[in-house]
């Protein structure tokens, strides 16, 4: 049984879409050994088809009664995109620099597109890692009992010794955050950087996040930001809660962005650039309350009042964003 659960909160209002997290993850884990095409961490522009393309329409997860739902394994070329190569060596021969493979999709293909009509269009960035769910569909779906949840921190791992590469986990994951390693005939996924955590280092995506949007801590650590933001202030919500996997990555949903304009070019007071319905489709009905709480605190702060919620989100000290040292539940400090 899982004794403690590590969790991550990502604040989408601070995400700038720079993908330092993606690159940090890549150099830490996925630049080798058949993982080149994997992005254990990716950042996608929402609305958009994301990575893998159309993952939100690829099934998986549980229904309301806890039954696994059918899902599909995305197409390598059409939905993940091949990790294309280049002819760096041929530059010595006077060749033009060219992509070795024709590409139709990639991990960030629809960057900065979004939806709506200029100048009232909208988009925001959504970084995604494995949610290390409390009710993991990947685990439920595996025929070989090759997926486990570590008791000490709740990190979900694929046991490569037992994995047979059957990919049920990929189909079952509603987030499509498990990947097939064709070189090893195994599936692999984000490991929440447990070897770093064991050495006292936060996950690479979180520690290297330049926007300072990621908090990491144990959900039962009442001093942690994840506890405060998720349990106390309730401004951090799981993505697609309706999939029933109980994610342990939480998002502070995006504020609506700049005011919209009317036909004459006047700003429309109180207008919501990002449709609330769209946010609800991502974060569930709780999103409205979370945004209301966030907006109320912003008003308070503007009026010169203190706000502990916002101070948590501001994150004065980068180092203090990570509380990863395993302590028994209830321990303080």
């Amino acid at each position, binding site marked *: 049984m899982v004794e403690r659960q590590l969790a991550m909160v990502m604040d989408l*209002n601070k995400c700038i879409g720079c993908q330092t997290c993606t690159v*940090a993850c890549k150099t830490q884990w996925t630049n080798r050994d058949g993982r080149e095409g994997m992005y254990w961490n990716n950042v996608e522009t929402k609305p958009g088809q994301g990575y893998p393309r159309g993952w*939100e329409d690829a099934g998986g997860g549980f229904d309301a*009664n806890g*039954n696994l739902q059918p899902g599909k394994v995305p197409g390598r070329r059409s939905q993940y995109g091949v990790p294309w190569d280049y002819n760096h060596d041929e530059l010595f021969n006077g060749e*033009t620099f060219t992509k070795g493979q024709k590409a139709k999709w990639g991990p960030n293909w629809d960057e900065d597109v979004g939806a709506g009509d200029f100048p009232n269009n909208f*988009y925001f960035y959504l970084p995604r890692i494995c949610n290390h769910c409390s009710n993991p569909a990947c685990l439920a779906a595996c025929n070989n009992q090759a997926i486990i949840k570590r008791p000490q921190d709740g990190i979900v791992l694929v046991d490569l010794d037992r994995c047979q590469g059957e990919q049920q986990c990929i189909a079952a994951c509603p987030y499509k955050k498990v990947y097939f390693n064709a070189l090893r005939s195994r599936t692999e996924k984000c490991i929440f950087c447990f070897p770093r955590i064991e050495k006292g280092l936060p996950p690479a995506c979180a520690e290297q996040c330049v926007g300072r949007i990621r908090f990491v801590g144990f959900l039962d650590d009442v001093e942690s930001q994840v506890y405060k933001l998720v349990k106390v202030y309730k401004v951090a919500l799981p993505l697609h809660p309706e999939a029933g996997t109980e994610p342990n990555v939480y998002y502070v949903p995006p504020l609506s962005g700049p*005011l919209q304009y009317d036909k004459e070019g006047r700003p429309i007071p109180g207008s919501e650039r990002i449709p609330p319905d769209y946010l609800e489709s991502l974060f569930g009905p709780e999103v409205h309350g979370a945004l209301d709480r966030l907006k109320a605190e912003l008003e308070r702060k503007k009026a*010169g009042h203190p706000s502990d919620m916002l101070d948590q989100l501001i994150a004065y000290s980068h180092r203090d964003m990570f509380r990863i040292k395993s302590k028994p539940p209830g321990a303080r400090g």
Partner: protein
Amino acid sequence: MKFTRRGALRSLFAIGASFAGTRGQEAKAAPSTPNKDQPRIVDDPRLSPASIKGTEDMYRSEFASTFGDAADHGTAFHCVNCQGNCAWTVWSKDGKVTRESQSANYPAISPDIPDSNPRGCNKGAQHSQIMYNEDRLKWPLRRTGERGAGQWERISWDEAITEVAQNIYDTMTTVGPEGNYIHVGAGMLSEARGASFKRLGTLLGAVRPYIASYVGDMFPGTSLVYGEGNIGCTYDFMFNTNVQVYWGCNPNQTRIPDAHYIWEGKYNGSKVIVITPEFSATAIHADLWVPIKPGYDGHLAMSIMHEMVKHDLFDKERARTFTDLPFLVRDDNKKMVTLADLDLKWDGFDHDLHEDLHHIAHGEENAEEVFLCWDERTGKVTALPGSRGAALKTLRLKDRGWDITPALSIDDVGGGKKVQLKDGTTVGVHTVFDELKEELKKFSPEATHKLTNVHPEVVSILARDIALPEVVSVTIGFSLGKHFNGMLTQRAIGSMVALTGRMGPEGGMNTENEWSISGLGGLSGFSGKYKQRFASGAISEFVLGDGMKDAEKLFADEDMQTATGTDFATYRKAIEQELKPAANDEGVGKGKSYWDTVETFLIAADARFRRNKGGYRDAFLKKAKFFAYVDFRMSDMATWADILLPARSHYEVYDLRTNPGYHRFANISQPPKGLKHIGEAKSEWDIATMLVEKLQEIALAKFEQTGKQEHIHIPDDTHSQTGFRELDVVATTFTDNGHLGTDKQAVEYALANVPQFRGETLESTVGRGGFLTVNEQGGKSAPLYPNEPYSTLENHLALHEPFETLSGRMTFYVDHPIWIQSGAAIATAAMPLSPKRFPLLLMTPHARWSIHSTYKTSATLLRLQRGEPYVMISPKDADVRGIRDGDTIVMHNDLAEVRLMAKITPVVPDGAAVMEHGWEPFMFEGKTGHNALAGDMLNLLEVSDGWGHLKFGVHWDGNQHAYAGNVEIRRA
């Protein structure tokens, strides 16, 4: 039950089965109180996992082999070609770099301000992935075929150095020092490493152009107003602002390490306003985004000023004290009236006060640079202190001994005023403020609405948000200066902010703060004994690349009329007349120097064929008799060289970087311990040292042969105090007898000699992660407090120190004859230059995915884009041309045709083609890059020189423009 569940699922699990509907719909369909008939999977006791130690250990050992041994880690930064300046730790294993991670160890300056960790970005995070690429230059290469044909032979370092040194020597002895062009380009802006070839060029008297203006990243319009282009704040200042304005910039994309302060500031109660044509990565999080029509930013600034003046949204006392607005201007010829013009015996002049001030000051006075106001208190004309020529160097209007109340408008003292000149005649006068008010009449919010697409209601919001709150910071981006009339835009915005009187702790104008760093002169110079041939960047590149030919092709009379008010030929003539006095250094001090005598080029880290416009590359190659290039990789620029010298890259050298001042830290690179070097690559310092040694050898051999003094002492009576370039001792001079010849020595020199780094050593900086904190002496026009964010201009506000402008104040008025004639004496706005027959304005802003062209060929980064050059167009512009997303298109105008991918996004307004800049030409079919489409024309106002503080130098050198090339596109 538990076991059958899996069995039952297996049948459901048709891999690849289709699944329709979105999550949102599903959520709504789900019952609110689920009646669970299955346990949560983690409640399944069967899940107590078997040991997976094998897998865990595999990942643990992978981590261990990337991390290596912490004691071996190096430190580095990647801003040799960037302004970010971030301290990184370089991980290595067995002498090979594995990855990098931000050091993230910068100290917090205060518990109330977020710290600046973990500075870094997506580009820095992957240098390790490209340093071992197959495009690394490993040994010297000599071209064996046509230039650019890709035929090379490997040669030894000695052969390579001999050939380069011989060419430099031959040029020195035939053409003279001015025949050599030795330059470290914009690809190496770091203080230690970059000083290598600067020192070499200075010692040899070679030509070196100014980087900031040739890359088009100058703020000349800001210099005009403030006397200094690089002003502003550290980004932590944003945290405590009430309003932050980002104008023509996209910090979420181009100031990645600093951007968090903007959004933490927003959480701290600050309002964020973004003014950009496209719905940028920064605009999405803003409170107000103003989608301005590109190129009309100056008009908007004038409109905002119109609103401020009309509704008295400015501080009159500040305007009287800190601006030239009360200065008197002649009605007849628009020249300012100086003390030298005035009849000092005229009884309308406050002679007594002038005498008193002179007495108090004990200083020299230059009456031609002393300006006058009409004093409301005495009703007399009064000479103001504080200007460049004034004996009394203060902006204080009142102190013991004097009390002046300058009239802002001549109407405030009744109007219709005349002054008596030296020749006894009288002339009507008004004030600079009157000039401003008159000019602003053209720019009412209603009048500019059609041009700017900004509604008057928005102008009114902007005026109030900028003028009224306590702390407001107005940041402008480099893109504004890339328009032909962008200098006027920078100046209009600068004037607008100056009108609010904001300085120091109140915020104000923010371009790009720079620290005051002294003591580095000795790295690249010789205490003035030898001078470089410092050339204007914008002009010398324009001339070298035959820019005028392209301009002639691209811009019709009608286009020039719109932008300048005159036809092409007249404008061209005026430009050429201005350029002449400073050609080939004939007119030092008479304008912007440039040389067309250059024939031998030794260049490092400078992607000029990528950067420069139109047909630059062809023109350059035609003029270059010999072209040696230094780089760590086979860049586009490298493919065209005669000799290629392989350099080390960022993790393989010692280096130091301080400016610009987005934060208060200087970063230091030190290679990981035991690093195995790549091929025969050498540092630029090593290369320069080898070159001078060879040069000395060649010269001495020649001298031995001929016995002629001129073969070791090359005459140079303009740029060498000795009258010669002494090649017989050139090596020992260069290395200062062995003290300064390597990258490590250069860093140690800086640490030992820069007072702002006092007390730091290589060990101390590397020990904490590769940085040091610039001490209190780093502030330029404001104190650098240890526990407060930095913001410039506080010394003017608090101590009344004059600005480094002619007026000594924030300057609205320039009475240079060309400026008066051009209608630009007072802040104004002018139309963009764009060839009207092409409908799409090509904009190439700074990139998220590269540092200019550096890392453009990184597979890691390209896979996170479209993988090839692409241009963004609006859905409507795509639709009318039958273009679909991902299509290959041809983008063209009269200068070139370029093939690339179309990306369709509503982020871009109609009528624009937006692409991140920096794509290397060899990434395009036919090696024609996107800048081949961007013509340029010198701007007469930027070229003009010799007025007050508008004299050629680091603050006044115009800009290479990039946004003057309109295009059309079609499906390929």
